[in-house]
């Protein structure tokens, strides 16, 4: 059988065997949690608690009225000891609520689940998802409630559940599919009801057939189907996944809504189910702790706000000579400079490397590998040159804003040019120019 896929893309080494067979282990909550008010795409939440206040597990401690936002919740019960700037995995200092854990995990009383989740109206589902602070758990952390609210003039026919986990090293989505297939399918069904889609397609790469088997055991209760996809990076990138499964192209600058599709990650689907049926806010998530710098690589269920130091200590600590720490996957993750930064909703993994090197950079030799592998059909080397020489208008004409920063070009580049760095810089410069113009 010919497996579905998208054009171009790359085949990086997987390194999934480090953690693929390790069941998700529950990590005990740490003594202190650091909960940033911005953990998602959009506006930061405003703090609802003050220093010295007692909070319970799952209590909403930050909220925003903006559409593109999500509330944050306490991941332990205890006392607020600071509302101040703190290290954020994004690399800067951001407003963060620090809570000292009293160890009792007193559940917040507001939390209440629905006894008949499938008979709720779309609005009720969205409301519950929004107040539970659910965001996309694939990495981009886009507020899920927004994705469940398609505009009226754009009918949705297909819901895609993204079980690709195309990032090397990460296995937490895979473990979720093995261990909680029912939660994922039920969450997917709720998402389908909320968006009004007719069918659900679950896309899984063909290196995770066990996950397919696990989901298949329960799938007959739902209007959902599973499609195996070729193992290729970035299969799980939204636009490429939609193309692979449906042969539809999301227009440039548009959203999946424009082609009648909504995509949710498997972890998000499970979070939707828990939010609606149990009233459980998003205060913990499954992540992969891996890499050759971790003594005992694991998949763990960790409270949001747990510092990386505690996460790594729980996995046996760092090996000697570790010189690179990354939050997220190896292809799109963020380098970390401190172990103090906390796990946030968008954290999919914590990775550590020993003896990492920044390779020597050569001049571009126009080998065209970046062009041959860019999943978006761009010319990365030319875009990088435009940014280098401040020719931003040309960069925009050549499609720099279509770049999804998947890193395929830089992975494949024999001259070891930091292409993604240049492209990101260019995108940021263009965005700030536009802000200035409109202001």
């Amino acid at each position, binding site marked *: 059988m010919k497996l579905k896929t998208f054009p171009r893309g790359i085949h990086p080494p997987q390194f999934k065997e480090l953690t693929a067979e390790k069941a998700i282990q529950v990590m005990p909550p740490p003594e202190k949690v650091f909960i940033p008010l911005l953990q998602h795409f959009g506006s930061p939440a405003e703090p609802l608690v003050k220093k010295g206040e007692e909070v319970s597990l799952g209590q909403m401690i930050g909220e925003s009225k903006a559409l593109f936002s999500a509330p944050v919740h306490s991941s332990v019960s205890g006392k607020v000891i600071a509302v101040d700037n703190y290290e954020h995995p994004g690399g800067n200092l951001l407003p963060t609520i620090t809570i000292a854990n009293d160890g009792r995990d007193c559940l917040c009383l507001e939390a209440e689940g629905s006894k008949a989740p499938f008979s709720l109206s779309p609005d009720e589902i969205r409301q519950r998802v929004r107040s539970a602070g659910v965001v996309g758990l694939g990495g981009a952390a886009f507020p899920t409630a927004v994705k469940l609210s398609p505009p009226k003039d754009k009918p949705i026919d297909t819901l895609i559940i993204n079980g690709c986990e195309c990032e090397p090293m990460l296995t937490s989505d895979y473990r979720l599919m093995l261990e909680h297939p029912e939660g994922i399918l039920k969450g997917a069904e709720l998402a389908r009801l909320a968006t009004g889609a007719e069918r659900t397609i679950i896309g899984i790469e063909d290196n995770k057939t066990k996950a397919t088997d696990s989901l298949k055991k329960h799938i007959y209760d739902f209007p959902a189907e599973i499609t195996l996809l070729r193992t290729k990076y970035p299969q799980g990138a939204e636009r490429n996944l939609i193309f692979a499964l449906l042969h539809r192209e999301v227009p440039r600058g548009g959203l999946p809504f424009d082609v009648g599709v909504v995509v949710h990650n498997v972890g998000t689907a499970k979070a939707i189910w828990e939010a609606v049926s149990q009233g459980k806010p998003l205060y913990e998530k499954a992540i992969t702790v891996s890499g050759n710098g971790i003594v005992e690589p694991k998949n763990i269920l960790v409270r949001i706000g747990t510092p990386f130091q505690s996460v790594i200590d729980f996995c046996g600590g760092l090996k000697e000579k570790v010189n690179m720490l990354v939050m997220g996957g190896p292809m799109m993750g963020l380098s970390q400079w401190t172990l103090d930064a906390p796990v946030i909703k968008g954290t999919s993994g914590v990775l550590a490397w020993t003896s990492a090197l920044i390779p020597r950079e050569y001049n571009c030799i*126009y080998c065209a590998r970046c062009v041959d592998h860019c999943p978006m059909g761009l010319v990365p080397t030319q875009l990088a040159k435009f940014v280098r020489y401040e020719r931003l208008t040309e960069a925009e004409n050549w499609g720099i804003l279509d770049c999804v920063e998947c890193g395929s070009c830089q992975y494949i580049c024999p001259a070891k040019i930091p292409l993604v760095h240049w492209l990101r810089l260019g995108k940021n410069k263009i965005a700030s120019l536009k802000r200035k113009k409109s202001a």
Partner: protein
Amino acid sequence: MTNNSFIIQSSPHLRDKESVPKIMYTVIASLVPACLASFYFFRFKALVLLLSCVAACLITEALFLWLRKKPLDSTWDGSAIITGLLLAMTLPPSLPVGMAAIGAVVAIGVGKQVFGGLGYNIFNPALVGRAFLSTAFPAAMTTWIPPVMAKVNIATFATPLGNLKFQNAIAQGTLAPLKDLFWGNVGGCLGETSAFALILGGIFLLYRRIIDWRIPLGIFLSLTIFSGFFWLSNPEKYASPLFHILAGGLLLGAIFMATDMVTSPITPFATWIYAFGIGLIVGLIRLFGGFPEGVMYSILLMNAFVPVLSHYIRPRILGERRKK
């Protein structure tokens, strides 16, 4: 472990093992069969030319890098060695070493470094060197000697293409047989003789995915169509397409020179145009031009079009609306 010792870099954190020096040395390895063939046919003369060109290229490269205050270890990235080898491959075996070295200096200096070094040159450096030599020393550049094992009259010796053009070889029945062209028992530049050795290197490069298969294929196709048309209309006057592909520098050019990454286009469609253009110009020069051979000028001419092709022919971006 202090926090300061973490590497901070933009994603991705995984890199492919391929690197610029690795690609360059793979190309060098692929030239080994052709080098061995040239030793076999021209013995000591071939060795001296190859070594002097490579040495002159390396010295020039180092000198320019030093003048431009660039890291000197770039000398050893392999690209200068390739230029040296390829330049020597395009020279007649009897060329004096001094002339060859001058060609190498021009190749690296004028052909590559004045543009900004590796990756910035518009024209294939080895061919720039050769073009300079054939203008500066036209006599020496068209004096040919036969391979050591051939029993022919040295005074009137010419290349198969020269015979075809100036001696009316088809009518005389002196056209070189395809078998000799394939194995290399004919006169010509160092690297032009043995088609077999060049194809061997080409297969290796295709297998390692260093060269774009479209370029050799496009050149063969367009030259076959062009020369085939005239051959079919008058086989008494024109040679067959297979003769044209095996004779002269076509294989060397199509496999090793037109495929130079720096001076060839980056998108598939532009690559087809580039390759067809080369094949067509080779055919025009060989059949109707003043020279017996046209590979060098055809590649240089199409090199000049690459920036234009790269500017106007871009891949289609995912989600781009087709024009209605």
